[in-house]
């Protein structure tokens, strides 16, 4: 008999038990303990890997099943069978398990309903509140509601991330406008001035952001063309050195006309 079992298909031992009960077409109010226990243990055997902190729960459940099974196998003395009083007082060893399964099943089904709502809600989109800050006096801008707490802030962050995910292509467009070649020329020259007019090529590329790397490279090409900097290499495979050739570049910057 082969099992197609993936651990993450189950969210816990109760979930696995419900799966088995359903598959074996077992009446939940009359569980054949021997069969269920055997199937349960076979299934966890078949699970290839199990996270350590969940493993203990699956084991506890296996132990519980074995305990119930063995309690049901304890031979009952002849006289006791006729004694209905004892039968009434003695609960079925399965009762507690059945109650737990039934209670759990309710919420498992509720979770499926939530999932349907989640996917329905995923079909419609909203927008960020309009930015009205330009119409507001400074002192009003940060006036939070008195009831604002950490979770509201977290919620603001989550909304932002959801929005960001929705508008990735637009966000990059704006990122590129952020720093112009002209600004970056000034920045590169400042680095050179602060380092005595000479830095290693790689030291100018400390950015994580790809668009900044490209921008800096374009800036260097522009500065070379204008003979503001000079790039040299001592020998093959050495890092390049960037040297400042003109101290005063005010005029150079003024001559640059930007697209916007």
């Amino acid at each position: 008999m082969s099992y197609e079992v993936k651990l993450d298909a189950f969210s816990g031992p109760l979930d696995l038990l419900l799966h088995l009960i359903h598959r074996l077409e077992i009446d939940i109010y009359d569980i054949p303990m021997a069969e269920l226990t055997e199937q349960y243990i076979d299934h966890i055997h078949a699970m290839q890997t199990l996270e350590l902190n969940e493993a203990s729960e699956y084991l506890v459940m296996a132990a519980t099943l074995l305990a119930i099974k063995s309690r049901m196998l304890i031979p009952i003395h002849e006289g006791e069978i006729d004694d209905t009083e004892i039968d009434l007082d003695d609960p079925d060893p399965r009762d507690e398990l059945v109650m737990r399964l039934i209670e759990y099943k309710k919420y498992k089904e509720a979770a499926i309903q939530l999932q349907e709502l989640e996917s329905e809600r995923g079909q419609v989109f909203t927008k960020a509140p309009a930015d009205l800050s330009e119409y507001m006096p400074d002192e009003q801008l940060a006036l939070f509601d008195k009831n604002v707490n950490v979770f509201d802030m977290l919620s603001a962050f989550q909304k932002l991330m959801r929005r960001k995910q929705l508008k990735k292509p637009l966000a990059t467009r704006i990122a590129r406008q952020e720093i112009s070649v002209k600004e970056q020329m000034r920045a590169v020259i400042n680095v050179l001035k602060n380092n005595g007019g000479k830095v290693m090529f790689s030291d100018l590329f400390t950015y994580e952001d790809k668009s900044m790397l490209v921008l800096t490279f374009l800036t260097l090409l522009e500065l070379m063309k204008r003979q503001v900097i000079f790039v040299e290499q001592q020998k093959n495979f050495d890092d390049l050195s960037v040297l400042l050739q003109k101290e005063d570049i005010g005029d150079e910057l003024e001559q640059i006309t930007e697209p916007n």
Partner: protein
Amino acid sequence: MNSNKLLSRIEALLFVAGDEGMTVKQLAQYIEVEQMDIEAGLSELLTQYNEEEARGITLKQLAGTYQITTKPDVADTLKKLIENPTNQVLTSASLEVLAIIAYKQPMTRAEVEDLRGVKSERPIATLAARALVQEVGRAEGTGRAILYGTTKEFLNYFGLKNINELPPLPEQIEQDDEQPTDLFLTKFQETFTQK
């Protein structure tokens, strides 16, 4: 105020508010009409949005506020804007924990774990990080465990007006006419007499 004037003002305010939304009370306050008028206006606006096929937007009541949202029929176009649609949805473990907290709130972690029969620290942390649940108090007695409840973001995330709009909890498994306890006993006796 004539109807067109009212509708245009409601639409403008809701447009500006975006996903913060606005309550009937706030709309009435800013437009300076009665809340009754706002309610009539909202219902008229909803009718117009839904009847006019050229509209890509509609009205939705979310977490106690009214918000403009896009219509479900344009979802295919808008989904092209999403970079990685799969990593946003909740896992089944998180949904299970969330269902328990939503229906039985306030709940401690230990209570959730009892019910599920499995550790639930990580799903709870994920739900808190996504602002779907939050601490709403502390349990009585020693330990003073954190009590969790759902948030406004929870309502927003599942498209609910308020917590009472949660679908009813699925009822207990269909039972036969017999009382389950009797059933146990009978079966129990049958089992043993056979052995």
